[in-house]
């Protein structure tokens, strides 16, 4: 019991919180990317593989040029390419999104392992730290939010911009419409499939940047499959976040916190050290069960504002194909 409390107490250290924020950038980018894509109705299931291949591309580009800022666009390009395969296969070839995404995941994972074998353990390039002047000296908030690097700041901005775009602009409303009821969007003159290509590609770019954030910042360097399973977590967090950027971002931070907590528990409970890192996963399942509990939903219907905070439904047309007949 005392071990549990010690581990819990460590969670409130400014340093722990700051490290959670610093470590979240990769997942934040990828989660925003997947959210945008799914909001438009396209599930990019390849994310675990395409993120990894993009991470490799980012590392390789930065390694050969010696410039970390070349790594990110390279990674984004790989992410876009993978996303367009999913969109093209679904829209033009009438293939099932889940099937293409899954095969593409396997392909990208294998490719990154094969192409990256020569880069394991090579001298890495890392994003330089940059404290924001003045803001970083604010107590608590300074170290937590403003003493990182450009990529971490950019991941925070991406969350806000994604939210603002989807819910506050005309184009964002059209994006939601396309994923919600494409025939209704079509009847209003919105080019459904064009927008699906566009937003899947943008989502893919963010997934790519997320991959590079791992190899160039969070876990600097290339090892064998460095982002393994993070793509699947991204898919889970998008669901947990109810396809809402802010809640998904909260999900990323919660996941990071649970990871940190499990890490803190390990020295206290050495017997369970193998099991503890898996805590975040059942915790996420539990959260999903709660937000889908029917009694709760019925009750929430009476409080629309609360409902919109606690729960939102998947885009109705997610995973389906739209064809103009």
């Amino acid at each position, binding site marked *: 019991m005392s071990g549990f409390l010690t581990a819990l107490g460590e969670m409130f250290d400014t340093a722990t919180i700051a490290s959670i924020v610093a470590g979240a950038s990769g997942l934040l980018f990828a989660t925003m990317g997947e959210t945008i894509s799914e909001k438009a109705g396209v599930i990019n299931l390849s994310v675990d593989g395409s993120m990894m291949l993009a991470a490799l591309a980012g590392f390789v580009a930065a390694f050969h040029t010696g410039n970390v800022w070349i790594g990110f666009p390279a990674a984004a390009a790989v992410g876009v390419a993978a996303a367009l395969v999913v969109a093209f296969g679904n829209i033009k070839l009438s293939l099932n999104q889940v099937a293409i995404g899954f095969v593409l995941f396997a392909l990208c994972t294998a490719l990154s392992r094969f192409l990256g074998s020569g880069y394991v353990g090579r001298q890495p390039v890392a994003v330089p730290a940059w404290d924001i002047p003045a803001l970083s000296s604010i107590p608590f908030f300074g170290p937590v939010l403003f003493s990182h690097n450009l990529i971490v700041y950019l991941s925070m901005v991406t969350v806000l911009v994604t939210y603002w775009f989807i819910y*506050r*602009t*005309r*184009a*964002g*409303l*059209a994006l*939601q*419409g396309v994923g*919600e*009821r494409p*025939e*209704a*969007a*079509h*009847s*209003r*003159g*919105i080019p459904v499939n064009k927008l699906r290509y566009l937003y899947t590609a943008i989502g893919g770019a963010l997934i790519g940047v997320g991959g590079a954030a791992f190899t160039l910042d969070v876990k600097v360097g290339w090892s064998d499959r460095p982002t393994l399973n993070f793509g699947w977590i991204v898919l889970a967090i998008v669901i947990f976040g109810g396809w809402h950027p802010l809640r998904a971002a909260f999900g990323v931070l919660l996941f990071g916190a649970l990871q940190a907590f499990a890490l803190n528990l390990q020295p206290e409970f050495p017997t369970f050290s193998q099991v503890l890192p898996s805590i975040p996963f059942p915790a996420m399942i539990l959260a999903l069960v709660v937000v889908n509990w029917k009694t709760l939903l019925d009750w929430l*219907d009476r409080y*629309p504002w609360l409902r919109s905070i606690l729960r*939102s*439904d998947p885009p*109705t047309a997610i995973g389906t194909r739209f064809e*103009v*007949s």
Partner: protein
Amino acid sequence: MSLELRDIHKHYGPVRANDGISLTVAEGTLHGLLGENGAGKSTLMKVLSGFHSADSGEVVLDGKSIKLASPDDAIAAGIGMLHQDPLVFLPFNVIDNFVLGSPGGSRLDRKKAAQEFAELCDRYGFNIDPASPARLLTVGERQQLEIVRLLWLGARVLILDEPTTGISADQRSKLFVTLKALATEGMSVIFVSHKLEEVADLCERVTVMTRGKVVGEAEMPVPPEQLVKMMFGQAVEVKDRPAVDHGAAQLKLSDIRTASGMLSEEPVSLEVRAGEVVGLAGMEGSGQDAFLRICSGMRNPRSGSVQIAGTDLTGKNYRDFLAADVKYLPAGRLEEGLIEGLTITEHFVLAGEDRGFFVDWGKAKKRAEAQVDHFTIKGTEASTAESLSGGNQQRLLLAMLPPRLNVLLMEHPTRGLDIESADWVWEQLLARREVGTSIVFASADLDELLRYSDRILVFFSGRIIGELDAKATNVDEIGLLIGGRSVDSGAA
């Protein structure tokens, strides 16, 4: 805005959904488009709203020929379509639904939109909470939202596809008031419906469509029986059918009442004897379908009893009715009767009486081949259900019927079939009378009803308004009854 359609053709494979339609809608008129389900009304309206492009033909708006390649073109031309199931985004709130797809820059001014929405709602007496998610609105309110949105986008021609399906009587009268007001403001309204009374209530002019063609036009008001005649056609001379002795009562309904909304409160009683054919006439949705479902055990009546061949089956389910040799062939052949993706052989295996765990495919294939041959189904035993034409699907359904039946219930047994197939189907059906099968069928084809029934029951808004001896009646009498006028009260 005046609108003219010139010689519109639209085919779906072999089906001529629109076969040379020409139609003129004058500015500021309420124009009704009347026809049974499947007459091609919806197809025509989808062409007009840019959802489908026509194979040939021309749409002329205010004297100018316009191109309608997408809904975008239609909106730009001022043509607004209200779909039967209003195309709103259910999770989004009313205002988001209102602005979605409207022109403008990237900035989304919800406040201004809400103001304009409120003004329009005020003007037409709608009362919709702009903050409510659309999924909490009734269908009628979703329609109101769509109408207001289309007006806001500048629609000058408004198309409503079966708008009264699923809305309350209150909302319907409100809708009609709104449409009349819009017409006086110069809007051209096309009101698509298969409901005679509504078109008669609302429209100034009406066009009647049947089987992809315009079969009549009239300036309202005209007597409903004239519209019925246009919709159902004139009967050709009725041939004598070989008489069959009627046996004991096979199907006996006593004092049947149903839950509200299906049939009216009046109890229904009916006896159908072995070898007898009873036809059900009426506008679609007047209660025939509910009636057939009760006879088949797919639905239970609220009170009253159902007897099959002397056994009381009240409250039993469809399986028990099947066991009592009652069979129901619904109108939706591919939706309810057959299974998409399964072959003819597989259908026979499913329908067959062999309940063993293993299927003897060799035997099943031989049996299917024999049936395909016997029923002259155009296809092979390996053809899937959806690859067959409508006529051949009906043949397959008939081929799957067990040899011995007490009661056979059917909806539109020959809809969509060519004359040759329809004759063949009836030959098969009438042959069943010899072994004592009672046949009850609903049809929209007066000729078919007169030709093959012994008795005809006419349904009107949920009740049986008349029972006629097929030999002693004629098209005019049935037409009047279908339009809701009873014979003895005369032209009310």
